[in-house]
């Protein structure tokens, strides 16, 4: 039971507002960049993290003289320069590319920056200095509030005002507004896009660096800052309305206050139920986002989203050709070869091959959703994880293995039905963000529900039945299961339902006009994709023997995206190729270097720039040229 005093509530509110203020500064940069360049910048969190690390080093370098405040300025400017460099060297090449590819490329930057930071500053958390002049605390209604919090509290409104002045009163601001409103018109008016984009990216990066540097007195610089902040910043920009700075401000306030309220409420008993509100802070923002987006799909101050699926890869509209006899023959030969693998390979390779099978199924389910359905998901790992946990929990409860495995697609299906109901009401980036939000909610629940999920430790001892315990036996089992599931997914794509789904993607207008219920069709597709992902998760749990929250964390969702895009969104065999390539790459790099993430990042960047259609697409094109 909590005693909710006015003092503690106020203290929480002030802390919440300070958090909101600094979150707004990050989100303002993100939304500014999106508004002008239409790029959803995953690396924005990395810029924030860099800001903190640079400020740490700069503070030490400037000991005495300008000290912390000078370091903040240096960190912000250095991050801004770094952002401009990223834009010039990389993103510039991707402006014409599909959104998902841009997103994947910026995730490549995340991986590279993460490892670069690791090698430059080490893995240890770096405790920053206290801000000179703001070291003390101010007493408010009997509670000590850090003076620094009051500084942060003022920062948000000051940045909002400054941005407003720049946007409203300067020529640069006018160009930014023009480009945000209408790129085509802005281009026609003679706006130099290249210079403008670089400048906007630099400004956004500066804001991220500033926020990161200013976070240093409150939180040690650490390697988890990038993905930690980016999820929150995404939520704020989406809830506020993509491209809207005042919207981001309002959204940051709403989310900050909601979190503060959760903490202040403490654990409340309602009847025999106990709700631990402080534990809800991890999900609070995502719940806010889910509610806001289902009521107002474009966020507080965003422009109504366009009907067309903005995530469409141009090639997606390529004619879909049902697999012919030659393709079926190829698949049969591949299956035969795969079945022979245990006879010639060692256990290590078999484990890896089992991973490939599991991820091929996982990626295929995402491909079905994104390729056939035209719905991009950033949170597909939620269903993979639901399936994995369902199987693990069932086994722990004494279920036989097959029963537990059967539970995995069922539970994932239920999850996908619930989340999908909200998601299919949106499209494009908004839909992707909502899937991300739901995935974060599932992750938070799994992470905190110790009694059932084992919390951060996860569950161990999830072993398959005795007959399947040997690695070759489980490999064959997984091959059979994944093979059948892949055939089923392939069939689904060729079924009347699959064609209707493709129709809803190509032209919702036409689909409705011939009597197809667009939302219901998309909802079913979402549920199917979730169920297949869940089945992959179940297979994964038994292959590993244990399961942890990482199974459904954000990087796992991105892995699936990378596999799909690596293989090619439209090539039927794409996810297979993508899963094989990605798993092999990750394994090879991880064995070769401590900095394997950066290696993966580099590969992602090269692929995004050189092979936007993925391996599958590249092979297709090669074959086409060769036949000619």
């Amino acid at each position: 039971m909590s005693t909710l005093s006015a003092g503690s509530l106020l203290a929480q509110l002030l802390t919440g507002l300070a958090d909101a203020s600094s979150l707004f500064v990050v989100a303002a940069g993100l939304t500014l960049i999106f508004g002008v360049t239409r790029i959803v910048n995953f690396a924005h969190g990395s810029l924030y993290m860099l800001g903190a690390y640079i400020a740490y080093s700069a503070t030490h370098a400037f000991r005495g003289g300008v000290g912390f405040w000078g370091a903040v300025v240096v960190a912000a400017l250095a991050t801004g320069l770094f952002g401009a460099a990223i834009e010039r060297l990389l993103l510039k090449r991707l402006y014409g590319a599909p959104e998902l590819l841009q997103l994947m490329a910026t995730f490549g930057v995340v991986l590279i920056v993460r490892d670069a930071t690791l090698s430059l500053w080490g893995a240890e958390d770096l405790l920053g200095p206290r801000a000179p002049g703001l070291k003390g605390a101010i007493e408010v209604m009997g509670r000590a509030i850090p003076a620094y919090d009051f500084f942060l509290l003022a920062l948000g409104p000051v940045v909002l005002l400054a941005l407003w002045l720049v946007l409203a009163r300067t020529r640069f601001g006018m160009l930014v507004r023009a480009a945000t409103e209408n790129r085509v018109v802005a281009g026609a008016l003679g706006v130099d896009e290249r210079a403008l984009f670089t400048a906007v990216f630099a400004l956004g990066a500066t804001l991220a660096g500033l926020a990161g540097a200013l976070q240093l007195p409150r939180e040690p610089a650490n390697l988890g800052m990038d993905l930690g902040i980016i999820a929150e910043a995404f939520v704020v920009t989406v809830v506020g309305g993509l491209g809207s700075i005042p919207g981001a401000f309002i959204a940051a306030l709403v989310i900050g206050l909601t979190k503060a309220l959760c903490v202040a409420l403490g654990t409340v008993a309602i009847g025999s139920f106990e709700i631990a509100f402080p534990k809800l802070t991890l999900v609070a923002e995502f719940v806010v986002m889910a509610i806001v987006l289902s009521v107002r799909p474009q966020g507080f101050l965003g422009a109504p989203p366009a009907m067309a699926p903005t995530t469409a890869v141009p090639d997606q509209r390529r004619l879909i050709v049902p697999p012919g006899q030659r393709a079926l023959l190829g698949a049969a030969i591949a299956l035969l070869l795969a079945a022979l693998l245990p006879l010639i390979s060692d256990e290590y390779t078999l484990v890896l091959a089992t991973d490939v099978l599991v991820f091929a199924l996982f990626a295929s389910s995402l491909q079905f959703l994104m390729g056939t359905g035209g719905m991009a998901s950033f949170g597909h790992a939620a269903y993979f994880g639901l399936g994995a946990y369902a199987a693990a929990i069932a086994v722990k409860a004494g279920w036989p293995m097959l029963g537990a495995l059967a539970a995995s697609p069922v539970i994932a299906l239920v999850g996908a039905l619930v989340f999908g109901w909200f998601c299919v009401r949106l499209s494009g980036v908004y839909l992707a963000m909502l899937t991300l939000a739901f995935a974060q909610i599932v992750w938070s629940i799994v992470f905190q529900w110790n009694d059932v999920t084992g919390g951060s430790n996860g569950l161990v001892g999830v072993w398959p039945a005795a007959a399947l315990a040997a690695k070759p036996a489980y490999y064959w089992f997984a091959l059979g299961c994944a093979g059948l599931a892949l055939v089923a997914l392939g069939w689904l794509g060729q079924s009347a339902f699959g064609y209707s789904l493709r129709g809803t993607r190509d032209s919702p207008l036409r689909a409705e006009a011939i009597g197809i219920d667009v939302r219901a069709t998309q909802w079913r597709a979402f549920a199917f994709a979730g169920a297949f992902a869940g089945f992959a998760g179940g297979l994964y749990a038994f292959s590993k023997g244990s399961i942890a929250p990482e199974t459904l964390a954000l990087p796992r969702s991105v892995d699936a995206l990378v596999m799909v895009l690596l293989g090619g969104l439209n090539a039927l065999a794409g996810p297979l190729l993508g899963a094989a390539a990605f798993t092999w790459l990750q394994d090879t790099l991880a064995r070769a270097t401590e900095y394997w993430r950066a290696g993966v990042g580099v590969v992602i960047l090269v692929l995004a720039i050189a092979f936007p259609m993925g391996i599958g697409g590249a092979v297709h094109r090669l074959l086409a040229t060769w036949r000619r």
Partner: protein
Amino acid sequence: MAAISAPVLRVTRLVKAFGGVDAVRDVSFTVDAGELVALIGPNGAGKTTCFNLLNGQMRPDAGTIELSGMRIDGLPARVIARRGVARTFQVAATFASMTVRENVQVALLARAGAQGSIALRAPAAFGAEADALLARVGMIKLGNEGCATLAYGDAKRVELAVAIAAAPRLLLMDEPTAGMSPRSRTRLMEVAASLAKKERIAALFTEHDMDMVFGFADRIIVLDRGQIIADGAPAEIRANAQVRAVYLGEEEPLSTDGTNTSKKMY
């Protein structure tokens, strides 16, 4: 069952406003089975808005729409489609990742209520029926072409085949001949006219080419700034002074020879 005598389409005092502008004001008309009716008027007169209200793309602010005596106003587009209203769009809306034949097959699947079936293999469904429809609109040779690469006029033809695949009671065609050569226009309108006559479909179309309008329509409804200013046989419309004033701003009879483009209505 509705009364046999009820017209296929009865629109009564339909109103739709956008912001402060009345796009459709107090519009009432009927279309009977077997009748080919043209809905004409200058740009912005409210023709497409009318279509959007009729097929459920938009909800009317006031007024009623009856299909064979049954109210359909306010129903969602897919439900109205199932009741027997098919339409083509001003900018052809087709499934770009599919072939011409597959577009018609999906429409046939939807008509059979099998659009959600996971047991039915789509590429094998209704192939012959689809080909028959394509032959009717002159697209049989292009059946295996992708819709994304079609010429504009051909895409409009595919749309017509998709629309009639639903075996509609009411067919709405928004500029069906746009992007076609004069000869193709005539041929397409002949198809539309024969559909109306032979299958007793009530057909309503908008068109900028007055040769097509006066050559094929049984009746012409003229809209101006959201209101009906004339509704009658082609000869009556041609003689109507108000129509001429609205269209040309001059007292010149409407030409039907099609040689003078300045007399086409835009």
